[in-house]
């Protein structure tokens, strides 16, 4: 009985999880292309001191959850060590999504670029439905200063 539940959860995690990931990546790529006209840099130099220049802080965040397949796969992987691709894509999606949300806000305000980008990743722990396994979800916050020049 338990093995059946396990297999159902595993295949649910695999098929639904993969399709969510795929459509999310598609969505990210489209939106990244739309916001390509706003360059984002990490520099923090004080070079925007011309009269009339405006700057404002923009913050974007997202919490993305892993799925059951990723959880099982990564716990197997941690037995032998090495690269966990399941979580690499998870962190990558979260980071790109957070940056996009920040850029979208800056775009609405009329920014022509965003400088001083900072990214922060933290893990939001949770428990499974039966309370035993620790499931992984990751929060990424991206923030930067939008610059508008006259």
């Amino acid at each position, binding site marked *: 009985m338990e093995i059946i539940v396990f297999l159902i*959860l595993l295949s649910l995690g695999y098929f639904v999880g993969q399709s969510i990931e795929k459509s999310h990546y598609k969505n990210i790529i489209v939106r990244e292309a739309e916001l390509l006209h706003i360059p984002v840099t990490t520099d923090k130099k004080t070079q*925007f001191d011309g009269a009339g220049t405006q700057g404002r802080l923009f913050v974007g965040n997202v919490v993305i959850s892993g799925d059951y397949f990723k959880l099982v796969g990564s716990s197997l992987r941690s037995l032998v060590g090495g690269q966990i691709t399941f979580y690499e894509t998870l962190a990558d999606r979260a980071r790109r999504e957070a940056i996009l949300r920040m850029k979208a806000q800056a775009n609405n305000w009329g920014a022509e670029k965003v400088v001083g980008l900072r990214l922060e990743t933290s893990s939001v722990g949770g428990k499974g439905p039966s309370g035993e396994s620790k499931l992984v979800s990751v929060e990424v916050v991206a923030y930067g200063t939008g610059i508008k020049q006259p």
Partner: protein
Amino acid sequence: MILTNIESVPGHRVVEHYGLVQGSTVRAKHVGKDILASFKNLVGGELASYTELLNESRAVAEKRMVEQAQATGANAVINIRFSTSSISQGAAELFAYGTAVKVEKIPWK
């Protein structure tokens, strides 16, 4: 109040410096949302309720920082940084800090 996370305020000159200001908040997750999230955890995807919760909490931390800056007489906070730490299972501290300054507009030549 102008907020930036770079070392200056674009188009402005820093004329006075009031030192570090900070704001923080500790938030716990809603139990109902937590249960929902644990089901979402099986299939993956965005946990919109958590995104919203953390976003709101961060805004509260930012607001507290701004209030502190206003009390010193500053009109801008520069070099803002955010930090998140998990205090316990189900609670997170969100922290915002920056430097309170007084700025003035650079005049047109």
